[in-house]
């Protein structure tokens, strides 16, 4: 069966595709940073609790991050909505199909996320009161977020490979996965290890802020967070090359000069990652953070480029028909601006209070 005959016809889009792609990449970047913190944070806390017993929350490393996880969870979900919306606008005909193939796993994300979210609260609220409950919650949360990442990796790889879609004709019950794909494992690990790195970085940032507000003895801690980041990022470089080599050779060539833009972005990302590792080992937080953000930006764009390569035979964003709604688009940007200002004002109010307290 010709796989292209299976690809659904897309609907028209109300603004140019590039605009949605920019919004998609921008919001996804924020989303993925929050997600990294939740997943990496869970794993670090789990590791810490398994290796260092009998510490109270305040004493432990977990104290810096456990209380932040529920809030980060909320923001990760919120910032997941936007890119999921924009990706549906551009690639809905692919992602709806692949989601249906794994419908059972895909919909299981929702109840599991609810459990994980509550577990994040229970973990921190019951940290001292009930070690067992707290630990069980942490385990549940960690397992769930790893599982969700697993499902997402399946979906993101299957949506761009229509040639595998005929599997539907032998299994329509919504339980198709894509684990046998050569890129599956490196892609999954590339994401999990990145999460550990970002969570390590966040811990450093938290300690840095405390340091700035006058808490003593933060310097070592800042460095320990940076160390987690640096080591994880070293591993990440290796996995990244594994991932690169796992993709079809045509695509590798595209990233190796055949497509100049793709090549520049990827190598910029790699170089920035090396820069981040170096500055982290040197204990320089601010440059490391800047490097990290730049690396994530480059890698998120590379991710989008890889998607375009996968789909290049069957679809290009230019194929989408435009039926403009510029008035509503303008309204969105106005609302977006007002929304961001409101958020900024609220955070400022909250921050003033926090500063007042520490002073």
């Amino acid at each position: 069966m010709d796989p292209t005959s299976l690809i659904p016809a897309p609907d028209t889009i109300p603004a140019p595709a590039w605009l949605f792609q920019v919004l998609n990449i921008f919001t996804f970047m924020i989303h993925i940073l929050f997600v990294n913190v939740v997943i990496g944070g869970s794993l670090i806390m789990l590791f810490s609790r398994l290796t260092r017993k009998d510490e109270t929350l305040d004493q432990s490393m977990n104290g810096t991050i456990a209380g932040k996880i529920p809030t980060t969870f909320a923001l990760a979900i919120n910032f997941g909505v936007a890119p999921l919306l924009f990706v549906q606008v551009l690639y809905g005909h692919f992602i709806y199909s692949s989601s249906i193939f794994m419908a059972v796993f895909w919909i299981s994300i929702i109840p599991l996320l609810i459990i994980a979210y509550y577990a994040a609260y229970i973990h921190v609220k019951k940290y001292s009161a009930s070690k067992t409950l707290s630990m069980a919650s942490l385990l549940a949360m960690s397992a769930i977020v790893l599982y969700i990442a697993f499902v997402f990796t399946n979906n993101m790889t299957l949506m761009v490979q229509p040639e595998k879609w005929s599997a539907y004709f032998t299994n329509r019950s919504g339980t198709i996965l894509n684990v046998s794909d050569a890129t599956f494992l490196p892609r999954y690990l590339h994401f999990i290890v990145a999460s550990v790195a970002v969570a390590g970085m966040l811990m450093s940032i938290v300690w840095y802020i405390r340091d700035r507000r006058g808490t003593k003895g933060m310097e070592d801690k800042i460095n320990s967070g940076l160390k987690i980041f640096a080591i994880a990022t070293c591993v990440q470089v290796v996995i990244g090359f594994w991932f690169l080599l796992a993709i079809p050779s045509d695509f590798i060539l595209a990233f190796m000069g055949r497509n100049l833009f793709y090549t520049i972005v990827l190598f910029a990302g790699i170089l920035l990652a090396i820069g981040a590792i170096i500055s982290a080992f040197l204990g320089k937080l601010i440059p490391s953070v800047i490097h990290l953000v730049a690396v994530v930006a480059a890698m998120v764009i590379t991710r989008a480029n890889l998607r375009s390569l996968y789909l290049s035979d069957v679809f290009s964003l230019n194929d989408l028909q435009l039926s403009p709604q510029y008035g509503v688009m303008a309204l969105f940007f106005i609302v977006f601006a007002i929304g961001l200002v409101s958020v900024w004002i609220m955070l400022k109010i909250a921050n003033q209070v926090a500063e007042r307290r520490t002073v």
Partner: protein
Amino acid sequence: MNYPIWEITTFGGGSLIALISVLHVYISHLAVGGGAFLWLTDLKGFRDNNPAIHDYVRKHTWFFLLLTMVFGGLTGVGIWFIIALVQPAATSSLIHAFVFGWAIEWVFFLGEITALLVYHYQFDKLGRKNRLLIAFLYFLFAWLSLVIINGILSFMLTPGQWLKTQNFWDGFFNPTYFPSLFFRSSVAAMIAGLFGYVTVVFLKTGDFRDQMLKYCSKWLLYPMAGVVLFGIWYYFAVPADIRQTAFSLNPQTGPFVIILFVASVLIFLAGIYFSVKSRPSVQKAVTFVLVIIGLLWMGGFEYLREIARKPYVINQFMYSTSVKQSDVSLLDTEGVLTHARWSAVKAITPENQVEAGRELFNLQCLSCHTVNGIRNDIVARTVEYPYMGIMALLDGQGKVMTYMPPFMGTAAERKALASYIVTELNDNAILEEPEPYALHPWEDVDIPAYNKKKDQYLLLAWNDLGMHCLSDADAWFVILPPANTIEAQLIKRGPVPEIVSDGVQLSYAVQKGFENPSAHVDFWKYSKLTFGVQLEENVGLGGLGMNGDMVWEDDLGGFIAKMIPVVPYPDEGAYNPFPAFTIEAKDAESGEILASTRVVAPVSTEFGCRNCHGGEWRWKGVSGMTDETAIRILEVHDRINGTDLLAQAEDGKPRLCQECHADPAVGAEGKPDVLNFSAAMHGWHANYMVFDGAAACAMCHPANLKGNTRCARGIHSKVDVTCIDCHGTLQEHALGLLRGEEAKPSAKRLMANLTSKQVESVDEINPRIPWLKEPDCLNCHVDFEKPEPGASGYNQWTEGPEELYRIRTDNAGIRCPACHGSTHAEYPASNAYSPLHDNIQPLQYTGHPYPIGANMKCEACHIIKMEDPIHHENMMRVMRNPVH
């Protein structure tokens, strides 16, 4: 057609959507109303300078955050996930039509969670001004998210001008936008009060707790006025046709209407209850129950709104089956399978019929129906129907009962789907047409003696209708009772013959073996209930038994015996729909027999109901209606019309259909707003009929050429003139009847999908009254001549009963059927049981089976040859259609 289909056959994708949505909608309304509740309650704390209130707000906020932000937020994402899995095409349409609406919604969501988190985490540290500001911002963002989502939700029900313009704002500010917004805002406030109790009942007992309970009651009760008022506005803002489909036609709405009303009353009573003192433990229990009732209320409302949209997912744009309305005609002509990207079968062959059916089932049924599942189970709904019934249901789907989409696709695809449902899902056998009846012709028929030379009288007798049916399901309902009417004219022979009315006594007697109909049918058990008279066994509604005297009627110019209760079941032997009566004319004074003949009283119980409704034949497996069939018919009637006929029948009180449905055939006036019986039956079933031409008629009437009656036995049937040449096709026939009832609302619905090729527009069809306005023979036989090729009797009705063939006379006062035979058995008739049987009198008097006097056999009555065609024009000729 565009996307793969998740085969979730038992639980059903729709159930998953419903489950997630109802939970989400409940909590999301709390998120909006609760925002105002937090803000205003906190404000009240400041105004009253009451720290206890702040303390309560702090606790409530934590509960509120855990419920709305975590559970509410994620179930919201969950709806999005599940609709994309179950209704990807509609989701894609909504996403693409309203991208920026969704994006704005997301911004508000971001503002909402930021505000709530700041409010919760910094509650004690924020000053009055900032805390109230943050609380207000939370409420504002939450309500604004309702402002957005309300536009999209109400769009799905009433897309309004968007259908023409595809303009964002036309869709957004659609006809139900504002009523829905005000309604939902009121609901949100009400639910805020409801959930206020949840935290208040856990406060320490005392004055403050009581005060807060009363406070929550105000939140619960005051907005209820808005819920009611805006609810009414909302209801009437929905176009009337949608309301009719949802609330009159769709039986699914019933339970949800009840849930909504009962839950409303209970919520109101709970508000009153919490305003008075009570024991804390009881209050906690009531609160727990109230939260559940609130969920039921919300579920009831949302279900109604969803059901109101049926058969669409986006009204008048996309069906629940993900097919755009604009694509239907293409799919009907080119087929669904060729256009369905994800169908494994593209062309139907005899081998892949069932597999193709499965694809069609997935494409057209699975979005609403489960297989042996909990919601709209297809097996429960279809297992009783045989193949022809399933075909009929598919054909009629969406035409009258507009809450289902029409079946889309070619005739071959419909057969494939029906085959899949019947064989694969229901494990039944396929029978494509009614089972043939092994009819054994009779060996011979006696022709009564007659001496042309000596006999002075000619006795002509006939049955008034040519076929009388009886429904034979007396324990359940009566359509027609056993009631055959026989008429006769006695002619005194001579150069100028006379019609004899005085000084003679005519009598009738049924053929041996048929004297005891009450042994075979239950009519007499129920006649008091169905006809209001307790009849003696074997006595009919005209007071006549199986033999007796005929009476002279001036109006008819002949003798008549009305409503003799003959049935086609003899005491011994085979089914016989043509029992004969012996008619004798005697001199009233001397008792001398003047003339004697035999006449057929055609009576059939071959009601084709079972062809589609299922069930077996009742009498010896040959004819008549079983309880099974009758019950199924009543079930359908009750479901569609909201009656309780089955329950009444089970209670021993069967009804006469014509109590409600007027019918000249039984002299019933019926109920004023209910369609007359013929219009209802033909109008309804014409919408579900898969057979064309006379085969359609034979699905119900005893005219099946392979059936046990084969009623159409007149000369017309020999020269290929079928039912439709006089009556029109079933659709045309129904249209004539419905036009006669056009003032009644249901007539319009039944007519909406019926067409006629004989007229330009349905308005040209002349209204008719069943039984009284019929096609006139002279429509085709103009001036009694041979009809022109292609002549049709349709759409020119007799003015009234006096013009009917069965009533009319020639110029000499002889009734038409006296010489030509009964309708549907016109001489020379050819009864399948015996070629002679329906021609007894012509054979008796003239030796041939042609009309009395045909082939210029004037001497039959006149004794001598005559010269003028005095009876009617064009009669002095040789029979055009000789029989050998």
